[in-house]
C-alpha cells in the first residue's frame, strides 16, 4: 500500500521545505558573494540577504536582529553559550546549573567546563521529566553564573516551565541559557518574555537546511556578552568568526518566516495526528507514554511497549517507517537512553521505548499505516518474547534471578 518510506523522526532532522530550497538556490551561483566583502556589489547583496534572514529569524522569536548570532548549528551555539559565558563571567563565579535530561551538546560541554575548573550541578527531573523549581532555586550559589535548561526535550517532547525558571533566575540575578532546538519554529518561543538571556536553536529542525543555527544573545536588560570560541575575522559582532554560509542563512530565514506563518495550523494538525497515533497505540496492553503529556510538544510521543525490545521492534517495520528508540542496541554505548533513565524508568522500559516525531509533511495515511504496522510488530515481538510469556503466566518478573551477562 504505502510505497514511500514514512518519516516519523522529525526530532532528528526535518526535510527541507521546498519553498526554502527555492529561496536558497540563487545564492550559490548567481549571487556568490561573501557577506563580509564591503567593496563590491557581490558582497553588498550577500550582506543584504543575510540581514534580511537575520530579521526573519529574529521575528520568529520576537527578538532584535542584532541579538541573533549565526553559527553552524545548535551544538556550536550550545558550546558558544556555555563556554563563552564561563569565560566571560569567570570573575563573577564558576558555577553552572543544568539538568540530567539535557542534550549531550550541553552535558558534554559542561563536562569540559568542569575540567577547565568550573563547577556544575546536574538537576534531577521528576517522573514526568520536569525540573523541580525548588531544587533549582536551592542549587543557586553566590558563585552561580548560569542556569542552562532546555526548552523542550528531544526524546520526550516535554516542555520545561521556562517562565517560572526565568523568574527564579531573575530573582537571584543569574543568567539563563536555554537550548531551544526542539521548540523554536514549532511552538511560540519568546526568550525576552520568559527571561531567557541566551538561546540556542537550529535551522534543520524547522524545515531549513542543515549546517546553520543561531545563538540568541540578549542585548538589553541585561546586555550579555560571550567570549568567542573561534578566532578569526570577527564576524557576528566578534562573537563568532567564520565566513557566513549565505545560502544556508537565507534558507534559515525563509524557514523561520514559514514557521511563524504556519505554526498555528501545523500545531493543530500535528497534535490531532499525534493524539490519534498515541491513543491507538495505547490500546495495546502494557504500553506507556514517557514524560508529561500536558506540557509537551504537539508532534511528539515517546511510548514504551513493555517486554518488547525497541530495536527488534523497529526491525519489523523499518523498511517502511523511520522512528527512533531509546534502546541500548541503537546506541554505540549499549546503554539505554539516559533521558528516560533520568525520568526513573526502569532500564527495561527504556529499552522498550520508541519515539515518534511527526512533522509538516506527515499525512493521515502515514499515521494509519504506522498504527497498523506498530500493532502488528508489537504483537509479533511479544510472541517471540520469553518475558512476555512469563508475564502472561503471572510470573513476578521482579523476583526472577536474572543471569546478567
Amino acid at each position, binding site marked *: 500500500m504505502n510505497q514511500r518510506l514514512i518519516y516519523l523522526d522529525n526530532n532528528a532532522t526535518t526535510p527541507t521545505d521546498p519553498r526554502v530550497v527555492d529561496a536558497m538556490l540563487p545564492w550559490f551561483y548567481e549571487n556568490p558573494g561573501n557577506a563580509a566583502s564591503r567593496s563590491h556589489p557581490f558582497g553588498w547583496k550577500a550582506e543584504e540577504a543575510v540581514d534580511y534572514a537575520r530579521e526573519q529569524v529574529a521575528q520568529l522569536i520576537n527578538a532584535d536582529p542584532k541579538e541573533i548570532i549565526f553559527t553552524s548549528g545548535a551544538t556550536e551555539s550550545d558550546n558558544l553559550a556555555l563556554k563563552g559565558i564561563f569565560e566571560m563571567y569567570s570573575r563573577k563565579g564558576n558555577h553552572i546549573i543544568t539538568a540530567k535530561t539535557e542534550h549531550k551538546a550541553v552535558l558534554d560541554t559542561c563536562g569540559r567546563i568542569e575540567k577547565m575548573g568550573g563547577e556544575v550541578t546536574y538537576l534531577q527531573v521528576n517522573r514526568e521529566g520536569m525540573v523541580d523549581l525548588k531544587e533549582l532555586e536551592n542549587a543557586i550559589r553566590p558563585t552561580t553564573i548560569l542556569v542552562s535548561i532546555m526548552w523542550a526535550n528531544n526524546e520526550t517532547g516535554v516542555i520545561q516551565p521556562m517562565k517560572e525558571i526565568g523568574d527564579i533566575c531573575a530573582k537571584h540575578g543569574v543568567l539563563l541559557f536555554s537550548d531551544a532546538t526542539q521548540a523554536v519554529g514549532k511552538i511560540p518561543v519568546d526568550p525576552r518574555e520568559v527571561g531567557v538571556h541566551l538561546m540556542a536553536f537550529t535551522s534543520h529542525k524547522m524545515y531549513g537546511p542543515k549546517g546553520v543555527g543561531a545563538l540568541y544573545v540578549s542585548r538589553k536588560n541585561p546586555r550579555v556578552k560571550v567570549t568567542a570560541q573561534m578566532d578569526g575575522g570577527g564576524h557576528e559582532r566578534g562573537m563568532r568568526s567564520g565566513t557566513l554560509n549565505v545560502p544556508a542563512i537565507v534558507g534559515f530565514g525563509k524557514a523561520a518566516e514559514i514557521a511563524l506563518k504556519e505554526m498555528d495550523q501545523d500545531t493543530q494538525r500535528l497534535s490531532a495526528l499525534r493524539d490519534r497515533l498515541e491513543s491507538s497505540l495505547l490500546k495495546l496492553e502494557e504500553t506507556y507514554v514517557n514524560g508529561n503529556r500536558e506540557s509537551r510538544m504537539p508532534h511528539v510521543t515517546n511510548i514504551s511497549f513493555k517486554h518488547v525490545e525497541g530495536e*527488534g521492534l523497529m526491525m519489523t517495520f523499518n523498511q517502511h517507517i523511520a522512528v527512533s528508540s531509546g*534502546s541500548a542496541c541503537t546506541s554505540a554505548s*549499549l546503554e539505554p537512553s539516559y533521558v528516560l533513565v533520568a525520568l526513573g524508568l526502569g532500564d527495561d522500559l527504556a529499552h522498550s521505548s520508541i519515539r515518534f516525531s511527526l512533522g509538516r509533511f506527515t499525512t493521515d495515511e502515514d499515521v494509519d499505516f504506522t498504527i497498523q504496522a506498530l500493532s502488528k510488530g508489537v504483537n509479533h515481538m511479544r510472541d517471540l518474547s*520469553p*518475558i*512476555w510469556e512469563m508475564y502472561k503466566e503471572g510470573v513476578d518478573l521482579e523476583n526472577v534471578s*536474572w*543471569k546478567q*551477562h
Partner: protein
Amino acid sequence: MAYSDKVLEHFKNPQNVGTLDKSKKNVGTGLVGAPECGDVMRLQIEVDDATGQIQDARFKTFGCGSAIASSSLATEWLKGKTIEEALTINNMDIVEELALPPVKIHCSVLAEDAIKAAIKDYREKNGIMEPIEATTKSTH
C-alpha cells in the same frame, strides 16, 4: 547500521520459536540475560533418551534483531546433535555465520550461554555429572 542478509532472514523467518514442556525430564531449559540489559534468551532442548541426540530445540528471545537471529540459528544447529557435540558450538561460529558486527558479539555470547544453560539443566534433571570443562566466560 545495516543488518546482514542472514540476520534479516532469521529475523523475518525465525526458526523454532516456541516453548517445550519444561516439566518433562528430557527437556532442558536455559534462561539467560536480563530485561535491564535489553536481552533475555530462553532456549530449550528435548533430548532423545535412546540416542542421546537433541531431537527438538525451541527458543523465545526478548532482544534486538541480532539476538533473535543468534538464537534462531542456535536452535537450528542444535537439532540432531548430541549433547557433547552441542557443547562445541562456539559464539564465534555464530558471529561468523551471521556476520555480526563487533557491537553485536554479545548476542552470540548470550546464545552460547543459553545452549550451555539448557544442557546444564538437562544434565541436572537427569543426574548426569557435568564433566570438568573450560566454560567460555562472557567478556562483558
